[in-house]
């Protein structure tokens, strides 16, 4: 399974970003292979449609779950209709490594 995480940076020490559409980096994790991909969000400063563009970007990678600090009201129905699960973590101190660890433990 592939999981996308909204991240403030491009390391495992980065924190979860409070916005999916406007996050700094997308981190794509393949829970089976353990592979990781770091993708800069070059669209984050667009005035409109950041959410939709972000959804397109991660859906191209066949992500089935997205973890973020929040999801916009327009993104939720999009992801629902695509059957992509949303996971919201309100604790902005959570590190990417924490999330990866949770996912890895769960898959064992």
């Amino acid at each position, binding site marked *: 399974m592939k999981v996308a995480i909204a991240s403030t940076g491009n390391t495992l020490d980065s924190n979860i970003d409070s916005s999916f559409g406007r996050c700094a980096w997308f981190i794509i994790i393949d829970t089976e292979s353990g592979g990781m991909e770091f993708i800069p969000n070059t669209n984050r400063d667009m005035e409109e449609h950041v959410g939709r563009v972000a959804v397109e970007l991660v859906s191209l990678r066949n992500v089935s779950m997205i973890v973020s600090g929040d999801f916009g*009201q*327009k993104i*939720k129905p999009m992801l629902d*209709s695509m*059957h992509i*699960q949303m996971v919201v973590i309100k604790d902005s101190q959570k590190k990417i490594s924490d999330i990866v660890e949770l996912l890895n433990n769960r898959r064992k």
Partner: protein
Amino acid sequence: MSARIRRPRKILNPPSIKGFKPFGIDPEMKSSKGSVNLLFEEYEALRLRDYDGLNHHQASLMMNVSRPTFTRIYAAALQKVATAFVEGRQMTIEGGKVYFDSDWHQCNACECYFSHPHKQLPIEECPLCGSKEISEFDFPEENNQMQNERDKCICSQCQYEQIHQSGVPCKEEVCPECGHFMKRKGGPGRRGRKMKGI
């Protein structure tokens, strides 16, 4: 996919209000008639067709119903809105055979919230930490923002954009540049079609 009867209709977002009240009613009319109830699926049909500017086919896919069913729901919605309008009746929006995307749950172990996109599957554990300590979660009413970003029409051919005129369905607008029909910018139409059959 064959059309099935009595299938719950999918609606993407519950309406942000519970109804409408007319104002300036003639006092003699006031007590005579009750309110009109718009079912959730009727609300959704109006929203998809006239607010998002989808055609009946696209809208029926979004709601997971056959096209004739959509047409029937939509006709009922128009009839009710017109009745409320003309007769100055109050309108409530509730009821119907629907499910909302999304229902949310929370994990009491890792304190995350999560949606449940595969409704046919039971929810047993947190998708993140695997804990079974989960409970249903209602999002607090989020501020009913006006969706300004959406209020633009875009040409289906040349991508020309103009400000959406409220009350005029985008699809009846003709592009001043190339003469093709316009549609609501950022509507979920494309996405909905693509998602069919997943």
